[in-house]
């Protein structure tokens, strides 16, 4: 018998637990000739801001051992262009569209969310809490429980859509941040966003990124993501969790589910293996079948 891959994250229902992570799948359409978008659990778009953003000066990316640093600077076309030009075409695939929302102020998060909740076709919003906060000298929203709660609460009042808070790992204790997000109205929590890092080029004796500091992603961050997920799982057993960080095989995804993730996101691996998400969907089904489980839920959180 085919195992049941469907999962529920509060009001958000997915045909399978495998999404593609924000910023690693463009707006979705970029992959349509390579990946069957209708077989994904959900598509999380590139982060959108109120106005178009040009992004940072290159170099913006650097390869590191089993990972990469990026400092793209939220280059995007702005929420209005997305709603007008991209969303209608993306909806044709029948896959839930989760829009990643970014902002430099609490008000910007809320305004972007408000515009997205006025149109059809958006299944949920994911708050990118790793954005630099203008009012606090560029500090990430996600490093403070108060700022996290403020951003989530502002978006909560602006929309009725399911709300996912994507947490930053660049904190001492992630639990109060997750609690702050949930108390402010987040329906689910995804973790983790990228880990802060730098890389240096001995040849040029300069930073490899023009903005010096960037976000580390890829296989190198998987244990960090799993650690944070495991801790939040223990503190918030009722909250749907989405595991993201370094997944590059079905086994990696299953590990997150065993630790308590309701769903997972494939991120950096999309760059090097565009069809990985579909492979992970099949791999999870196969794992359940071989081991005699009827559903994804049957293995969720059994490692704690």
């Amino acid at each position, binding site marked *: 018998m085919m195992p049941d891959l469907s999962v529920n994250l509060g009001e958000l229902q997915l045909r399978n637990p495998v999404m593609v992570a924000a*910023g*690693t*799948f*463009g707006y979705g359409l*970029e*992959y349509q*000739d*390579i990946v069957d978008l209708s077989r994904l659990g959900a598509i999380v778009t*590139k982060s959108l801001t109120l106005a178009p953003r*040009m*992004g940072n*000066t*290159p*170099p*913006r*990316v*650097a*390869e590191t*051992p*089993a*990972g*990469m640093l*990026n400092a*793209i600077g939220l*280059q995007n076309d702005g929420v209005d262009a997305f709603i007008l030009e991209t969303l209608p075409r993306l909806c044709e695939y029948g896959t839930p569209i989760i829009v990643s929302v970014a902002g430099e102020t609490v008000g910007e998060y809320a305004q972007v969310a408000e515009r997205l909740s006025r149109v059809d076709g958006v299944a949920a919003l994911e708050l990118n809490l790793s954005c630099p906060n203008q009012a606090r000298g560029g500090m990430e929203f996600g490093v403070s429980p108060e700022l996290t709660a403020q951003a989530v609460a502002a978006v909560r009042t602006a929309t009725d859509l399911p709300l996912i808070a994507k947490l930053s790992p660049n904190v001492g204790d992630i639990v109060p941040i997750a609690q702050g997000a949930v108390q402010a109205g987040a329906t689910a929590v995804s973790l983790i966003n990228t880990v802060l890092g730098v890389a240096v080029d001995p040849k040029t004796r300069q930073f490899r990124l023009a903005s010096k500091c960037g976000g580390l992603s*890829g*296989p*190198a961050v998987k244990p960090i993501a799993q650690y944070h997920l495991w801790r939040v799982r223990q503190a918030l057993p009722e909250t749907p969790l989405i595991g993201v960080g370094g997944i*590059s095989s079905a086994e990696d995804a299953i590990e997150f589910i065993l630790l308590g993730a309701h769903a997972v996101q494939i991120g*950096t691996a*999309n*760059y*090097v*293996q*565009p*069809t990985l998400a579909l492979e992970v969907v099949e791999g999870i089904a196969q794992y359940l079948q071989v081991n005699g489980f009827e559903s994804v839920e049957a293995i969720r959180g059994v490692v704690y």
Partner: protein
Amino acid sequence: MTRYELPAVVVEHQRRGTNLYELILHAPPIAQSATPGQFVMLRPLRTHAPLWRRPYSILRANPDKGVFSVLYSVQSAFTELLSLKPIGSTVQTLGPLGSYFQPVRAAQRHILVAGGVGAPPLCFFAARLAPTLTPDEQILILEGARREDLLVGLDEFRALGAEVRVATDDGSRGYKGYVTDLLAEALNEPLESVVYACGPNRMLRVVAQLCMARGVPCQVSLDAPMPCGIGVCLGCAVKVNTPDGGAWYKRACVEGPVFRAEEVVWE
């Protein structure tokens, strides 16, 4: 533009110079649709380190045989993995990708400026351009490298009937100095010229400036760190002038790698 994600089969590693190899891959859809200036992303093995695929310009393509090739030298963990791929094994490949060189038909002389590792796409371009020339058109190759043994494709360029001028940093062959000096000289000759260039970005900046100062049409193939090649990561950003007088970032992997010189913001 159609692109393919497929396992290409290794046909041969052909030695082409000192630590310089031509990797011939069998992948008919790519071989049949590749245009000079375009590239492929290669991944020899599913490794975590190296993680990224690497972009390789297409050196030649034979649609009838379904093969295309790229040029590599062994100088990193990635290229070592590539060099160890046995004949008959597969290399996961995405391509053909990006923009391509577009022949400017009004020209009397097509000047192809190749610097170091920038030669492969111009070899492909010359091979496709030569058979289409009218009796009034000619090809001039200007190729530069650090040393003589790093020069690529000189015999092939000559076999196409092109004139070839060479510069090496150490003077081991041809002019001792930069290939851009040869270009400055060539642009002073009384012929309607158009320039197509590929090489290090600092060389391309000089090429672009020389051409723009003389009103010579110029297309450059730019290099940028490229994690995805698909157009999603925005890592390979190239700053370009916009029609409204502003600037924006385009992607070397989709809108590039070949840009018109005047479109690029040369910083």
